[in-house]
């Protein structure tokens, strides 16, 4: 375990201790099996305590875990015949977004997702998963293609946000995101969006309009990062932990706010513990969603998509 998050330190330390005792048992003639059994029971309880009651801030850390599986990791397990397709045909190829065609259970789909790097070198290439306009326009190009050839679109959301840069503004970052929102709303094929890590603001939403929105248990989705919110609202970025609670950014919060359809359970201790098993959890919900959505005709699909978004938000009347 290379990266240990603060809140899970006791678990990791106890686990290491058990490993050490096991090694001692093997190497020396000492019989420590009783202690090991006791410690393993304690570990089980500790894991339950630590991982089953994670605070919003713990989940923020988990969503940002350096080993957290990315779009390409899940593509490996979920699809066959994935063929990555590049470029927006207008300016360039933005590697902060990966996209392509593939098969899901033997049926054609279009797959699009934000793509972070796993190390510094890859992160520089992929701009830390923060897209420029050409990324959104590449995504749109492939969505239109999916629409033409009548195959569902599956997107993976995992970005701190769209890149705040000079060139991004010059090439129309706002328009690129705005265009995707409107065009995704009009796709006549099923669209499924899965938040797998951080869902940061408009940059996340730019791949996020669909018929079903799912979130991994330890992913977050928010209008601004907790640090940004704390700085903006309370002029103190150290209050990020409090902002993470106040802003309601966890999967459970979003389910309660009726913004997402379902929370996808995570492996205890985080998706990175077992990518294959995690992919199976994702596969289950995508399968069920596609089974349902594939039966709908275009008009119903669009009508229900409209109704889905129409109810988001909460307001009252002055005279109540």
């Amino acid at each position: 375990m290379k990266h240990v998050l603060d809140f899970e330190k006791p678990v990791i330390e106890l686990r290491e201790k058990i490993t050490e005792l096991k090694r001692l048992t093997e190497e020396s003639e000492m019989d420590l099996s009783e202690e090991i059994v006791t410690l393993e029971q304690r570990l089980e309880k500790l894991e339950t305590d630590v991982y089953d009651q994670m605070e919003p801030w713990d989940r923020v850390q988990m969503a940002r875990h350096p080993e957290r599986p990315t779009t390409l990791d899940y593509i490996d397990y979920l699809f066959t015949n994935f063929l990555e397709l590049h470029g927006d045909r207008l300016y360039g190829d933005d590697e902060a977004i990966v996209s392509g065609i593939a098969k899901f259970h033997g049926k054609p789909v279009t797959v699009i997702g934000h793509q972070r790097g796993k190390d510094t070198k890859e992160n520089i290439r992929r701009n830390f998963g923060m897209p420029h306009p050409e990324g959104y326009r590449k995504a749109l190009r492939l969505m239109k293609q999916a629409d033409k050839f009548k195959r569902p679109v599956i997107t993976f959301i995992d970005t701190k946000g769209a890149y705040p840069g000079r060139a991004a503004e010059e090439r129309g970052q706002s328009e690129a995101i705005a265009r995707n929102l409107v065009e995704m709303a009009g796709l006549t094929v099923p669209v499924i969006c899965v938040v797998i890590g951080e869902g940061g603001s408009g940059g996340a939403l730019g791949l996020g309009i669909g018929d079903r929105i799912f979130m991994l248990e330890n992913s977050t989705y928010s209008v601004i990062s907790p640090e940004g919110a704390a700085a903006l609202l309370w002029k103190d970025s150290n209050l990020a932990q409090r902002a993470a609670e106040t802003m309601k950014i966890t999967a459970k919060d979003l389910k309660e706010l009726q913004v997402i359809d379902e929370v996808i359970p995570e492996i205890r201790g985080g998706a990175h513990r077992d990518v294959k098993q995690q992919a199976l959890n994702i596969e289950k919900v995508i399968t069920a969603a596609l089974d349902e959505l594939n039966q709908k005709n275009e008009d119903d699909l669009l009508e229900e998509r409209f109704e889905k978004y129409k109810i988001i938000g909460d307001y009252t009347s002055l005279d109540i």
Partner: protein
Amino acid sequence: MLRDFFSKKKRYASIPSQEAKQDVPEGLMQKCPSCQKIFYRKELIRNMNVCPHCDHHHKMSAFERIEQLFDENSFEEWDKDMISSNPLQFPDYEEKMENDRLKSGLNEAVVTGKASLEGMEAAVAIMDARFRMGSMGSVVGEKITNAVENARKANIPFIIFTASGGARMQEGVLSLMQMGKTSVALQRLNRSGGLFISVMTHPTTGGVSASFASVGDYNFAEPGALIGFAGRRIIEQTIREKLPDDFQTAEFLLQHGQLDKVVHRHEMKETLSTVLSIHKEGGEQG
């Protein structure tokens, strides 16, 4: 952001701003933040809130705009009493809104309704930056969505004047999702062949810039308006370079192909009328 741009100019102004401020009687006189000149407020209002000396487009309230643009008494307001329910139970949010209600006389950051422009009916939404900096929360999203839907049902065009600092932080992810909600409604209008005109005024940034403001069939903007996705300071911190003074102005956007036209406030009515009349001739609209 744009203020940085003006404060730079300030150094060359002949009147020291601090003293000038004290000399200006509240209400009667007004100082232009751009050229620093002082003139009667009456003069400014007569000139559609455009500085008579330097052409700077001063901020305008939603109802001032409605009065200047649309046919007399043609405006019928929709969803007038809709207010935020503070869905996240955000501390101090309700007090802040109450203050803004008193200050601006508005219940929220957008006014919507039906109006006529030279006899041509349209559904209109006018944002007002005096209420929570024009930020978009559930109410702004719902009112705009309703206005778009009303336009579609009545087969009339939809016109919006944007003025917004972006998403309403106090409504968290619900405010983000209003970008989606309004976009889905606009897509519906689009599929029915409806006309959508977006006029961006100062400022139009963040989530509003990155949703409906940027996807009109026609995208116009007022001169000098600040329009952009990310904030100037964040960009400067990220790329570690100083941005040019005109960065993210309407003129900058026009130069980079993001706008159809920068329209002077004095020509706004005529421009909108031209578009509406061309569409009226075209067939289904109107």
